Structures are given as C-alpha cells and as structure tokens.
C-alpha cells in the first residue's frame, strides 16, 4: 500500500518535472530565436554603411533618403532601445532601402558596378536570413503560446506566471517573395 503510494508520488513528481522542463525549454527557444534575429540585424547594420556609401557616389536625387537611412541606422544600433521600437525602426529602414533598390534601375553605371553588385547580393542574402529568423521566432512563440494555453501545461504555466508572447508582424510587402523583377525593374 505504502509502496503504491510512493510510486504514485514519484510518478506525479516526474510528470511535473517533465512539464516544467518542456515549458522552460520552449521559453528559452523563444529567447534564442530572438537572439538569432538580433545577430542577423547586426550583420545588416554592418553592411548598411558600405552600401549607402557606394550608392551615394552614383545617386544624386535620392540623397535625402540615403541620409535618412544612415540616421535610422545610428538610432537602431543603440543597445538600450526597447525591442518594439527597434522593430519599428527596422521596418522603416527596410522600406527606405527597398525604395533605393528600386531606384537603382535609373543608374546604369551603379547597376554595373562590381562592388555594388556584390553588396546587393549580400543585402538580399541578409534580408532573406532576417525573414527566416523572424519566421523561426514566430514558430517558437507559437509553440510556447500553445504550451501556455493547452492542457495540462497551462496549469504549470499559470503557476510559473508565464505570459503569452506576441508574434513579430511581418510587413505586407515583405511577405511577398523577393523576385528579381521587383528588385531590378521599377
């Protein structure tokens, strides 16, 4: 009788440990995924000044936009910035850069510049990686939120005071696939 009782208690403890660990793992996965977005964004910040400098030499009419991008970047690299503001700045940089990439079409010399072509390739690569990192983040949030709301992990989550996390909204224009036509033809 006592043996059975001990058995049941051990079983319950085991289940609690498993639930607890799976929740913690899911929460950490979200943090990890956010970290990978951050890493990708840093990569992009490093590339941005180079790209802007190269483009500046050729573009006469888009100086304002280019200056704006540089300003946005210096704001965005501030480590104290809260995540939601950071994402907002990111989206602004994105939109501005997309505009510039479209304008490139009007500057055949720039388009043929070897250095620029390489930078553009890297830019597209990073864009796609950032988008992938965001999707990975949302998938991690999805799995975490499911655990917070589904039975029986929801009981555990309630006791651990875990809150639901919000998804990163992916701007409409970014949801469209990058296609060569969008990039090279205005």
């Amino acid at each position, binding site marked *: 009788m006592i043996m059975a009782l001990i058995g049941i208690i051990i079983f319950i403890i085991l289940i609690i440990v498993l639930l607890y660990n799976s929740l913690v793992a899911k929460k950490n996965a979200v943090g990890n*995924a956010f970290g990978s977005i951050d890493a990708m964004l840093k990569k992009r910040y490093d590339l941005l000044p180079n790209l802007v400098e190269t483009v500046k030499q050729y573009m006469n009419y888009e100086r304002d936009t280019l200056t704006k991008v540089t300003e946005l970047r210096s704001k965005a690299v501030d480590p104290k910035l809260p995540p939601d503001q950071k994402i907002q700045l990111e989206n602004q940089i994105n939109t501005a850069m997309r505009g510039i990439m479209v304008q490139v079409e009007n500057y055949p010399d720039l388009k043929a510049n070897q250095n620029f072509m*390489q930078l553009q390739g890297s830019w*597209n690569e990073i864009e796609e990686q950032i988008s992938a990192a965001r999707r990975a983040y949302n*998938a*991690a949030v999805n*799995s975490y939120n499911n655990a917070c709301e589904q039975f029986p992990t929801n009981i555990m989550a309630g006791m651990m005071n875990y809150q639901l996390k919000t998804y990163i909204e992916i701007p409409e224009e970014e*949801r469209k*696939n990058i296609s*060569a036509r969008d990039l090279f033809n205005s």
Partner: protein
Amino acid sequence: MSMQSKAEFLKLYQSQLMPALRSLEPARKEALTAFLTALFFVLASIPGFIAFSRIENPVVLLIALVPLGIGIYGFFRYNQKKKDYAAVFKERVIRQMVKLIDPNLDYYPEHLISKVEYKEADIFRNPIDRYSGDDLVEGALGVTRCRFSELEHQEKKESVDSKGRRHTNWVTIFKGIFFVADFNKHFSGRTYVFPDAGSSFLGVGKLFEKWTTGRGDLVELENPEFEKLFTVYGTDQVEARYILSTSLMERLVNFRRKANTRLHLSFIHSKLYLALPVNKNLFEPNVFSSGVKSGYLKEYFSYLELVTGIIDDLNLNLRIWGKGP
C-alpha cells in the same frame, strides 16, 4: 507535358527519332529472333527430360541436353544482341531527347550518380548492399549545374524462420531518378524535406514525427499545404527557413503535385538532392513491340522534362543572394 513541349517533341519524333528508330528495327528484330530461337530450343528439350524421367536411359538425357545447351547459348546471344540494340537506341534516341531539353546537357548512358554522392545526400540511411543505375544526364541549365541518373538501392535482409532456415530478402530502399543541383543560396547545415507522416489519426503521427532523431529537430513551417505534404527536419531552425522561403515552399507544393509521387529532398553543402521514385526502368528500348511507336518515348521525355524542370520550378537560376553560378 506542356503544349509547347509536346509540339516540340512531336517535331523531333517525326524528323529524327522515327527515322532513327526505323533504322534500328532490323537490330530489334534480330534480338527478337534470337530470343524466340532460344526459347524454342529450351522448350524442345522438355520432352527429352520427361522421357528420361520415365526410362532413365542416358542416351535420352543426351538428346534432352543438346537442345537445352543450344537454348542457353541462345539466351546468352539474345542478351548480347539486346545490349547492342539498347546501346544504339540510347545513343540515337535518348541522346536526341536530352539535347532537345537543353543543348548544354550531356548524356552518359552507362554512368550513374556515384555512391559517394548518394551517401552525401543522406536521404536513405539503410545499408547499401546493392547499388546500380544508369542514364546519367549532366550539365548546366542556365547558371545552375545539375545532374541526375536512374538509381536502385537495395538492402539485404536475412531472417531465420521457425525451422531454422535462412531467408535472404532483397529490399528495395529506393528506385527511381536521383537528382542533384547546385542550390542558389549558401548554407552550412543540413535540412531534410521528407514526405509527411503527421496527418494520421488524432495527431499521433505528429508525435511520431518529433521522435525521429538523427536529422536534427523538427522544423514546423507556416504553410499548411506544405505541412500536409512534407515533414522538415534540420540542424538549424533559421537556416531551414532561409532555404525554405515562403516562395520555395509554394513551389515545392506545386512540384509535388506535378510529380504526383512521394518526394525526399535534402539540402546539404549548398546542394539540393532529390529522390524521385519511379517504379520502372526508364530510357530502355522495348524488344518485344515495335520500336517506332511513340508512346513509351513520350513517357521518357516527360520524365526528362519533369526532372530538368525542377530548376525552373524551384527558381534555382535566381542568383540574387550573393552566391554566383
């Protein structure tokens, strides 16, 4: 087959394949005659064996063995003739078809995707006890290098039954077309796209998907149609999504519909590997019916088209991610 390629194929068939096939007809008929002759002698030996089993006279056995010997030799000769016929057929017919798909493609009737490359793809991990294949096509389509061949991978399974007898079973792990292409993005991890196992009863399959180990973690993607058809594993969650962009997922769904068969893909060392099962031996001539018929050639052509079409279907020629040709 699309309308345009159908028209092109028919043009090629009428202008080049049909004359080639016609000139091959004597060779085919010769092989057929060799087969029928061999069959005749083997059948002719049967009465002798029946007689021997009744009267057990060695002379009768001799009478039976002579036609059997001739018959076996006949089959040997038939095999030789069939091989010769197949070689010329591939040279004159299949090579033309490959050229019609793209003049930049080379065709090697006797070669195959190497075992090393097949292992690198890491799709089927069963022991490779028998490995064969032929009809290698290789070249650049646009800026993307690719190659594919027919392959068959078999595993030997031995079992002992209740009476202690050994049974050897050859299990086919993969038979079909194996395709390798240079992928248009850099990556360093491993990503596997396998047929879905998760749509079974009450999500039990989903649970099962998570248990599959050794290929990294399950990668759950946001395209429901894609998730219905495929299960993705990868060593890096972000990289798997970098490879399987929203557009590539859509394209894979469409390709899967077009191919209408279970597909296994892997993305390793910046390469794309695809195993497309085909349950017959492609690109071979048929000795037993008129070679001039176009039906079976159309099928071969549509397989060639399907496989080479992957480059366009998955947009692999789009090189905007800093990875050159």
